[in-house]
């Protein structure tokens, strides 16, 4: 049975796997897995609140429904960082990245997301992979540290 704790543990596993994929230069899959880690953490908080998981992959909507930011220390640098990190992940992730090879992901980053235009083309995938993993680790770290809070916001 998939419980809130199952999703939370999956988030932690996925984000570490994304880092390992990046190290092995599997940048396209690293992108997908980093975003998946964040989605798992949002699902964990939705489950924890007893809310159903909607059938879409809009991370910001999931984040808002599960009141994720409300679980974090208020008005401090941690919350600001996590808010920015959620924006970074949203900008760089789509659920259908799992179907993209590196060529297609590079095309998407350039033509659709229009990200990292100041980064040399040959470094763009690596750069974007690093950015989304950094952001995903920030979100998963905050989610993990806030998990033990007894009081719901």
């Amino acid at each position: 049975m998939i419980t809130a704790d199952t999703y939370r543990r999956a988030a932690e596993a996925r984000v570490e796997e994304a880092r390992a994929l990046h190290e092995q230069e599997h940048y396209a899959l690293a992108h997908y897995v980093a975003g998946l880690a964040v989605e798992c953490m949002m699902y964990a908080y939705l489950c924890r609140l007893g809310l159903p998981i909607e059938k879409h992959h809009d991370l910001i909507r999931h984040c808002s429904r599960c009141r994720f930011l409300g679980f974090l220390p208020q008005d401090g640098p941690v919350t600001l960082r996590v808010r920015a990190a959620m924006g970074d992940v949203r900008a760089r992730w789509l659920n259908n990245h799992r179907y993209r090879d590196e060529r297609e992901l590079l095309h998407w980053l350039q033509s659709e997301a229009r990200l990292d235009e100041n980064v040399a083309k040959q470094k763009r995938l690596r750069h974007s992979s690093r950015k989304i993993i950094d952001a995903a680790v920030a979100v998963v770290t905050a989610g993990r540290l806030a998990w033990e809070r007894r009081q719901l916001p």
Partner: protein
Amino acid sequence: MGATTTALRVSKLRGLLERSFPGAEIHALRRETRPGRIGGVLVWERFRHKDQFDRQQELWTKLKAELDAGEMQQIGLILTVTPDEYRAFTHQ
């Protein structure tokens, strides 16, 4: 874990982290599930001014230098935070 892989003891990993990150606090270092990987929280002042990606790279580079591949496979997510970040969550 394969039959020939040595189980990584939590105490060994803790000792390695203490040597590699002098002055760090280490919290909740454990295998949460069995089977499962060892995870925990590494709190270190010198993570300040480094982003999460660089903190994790530093952690894994240091672990890789000391552990074999079988032991590395038994490690999961170790959170890398500064004392201020850790306190923000534990003193609210």
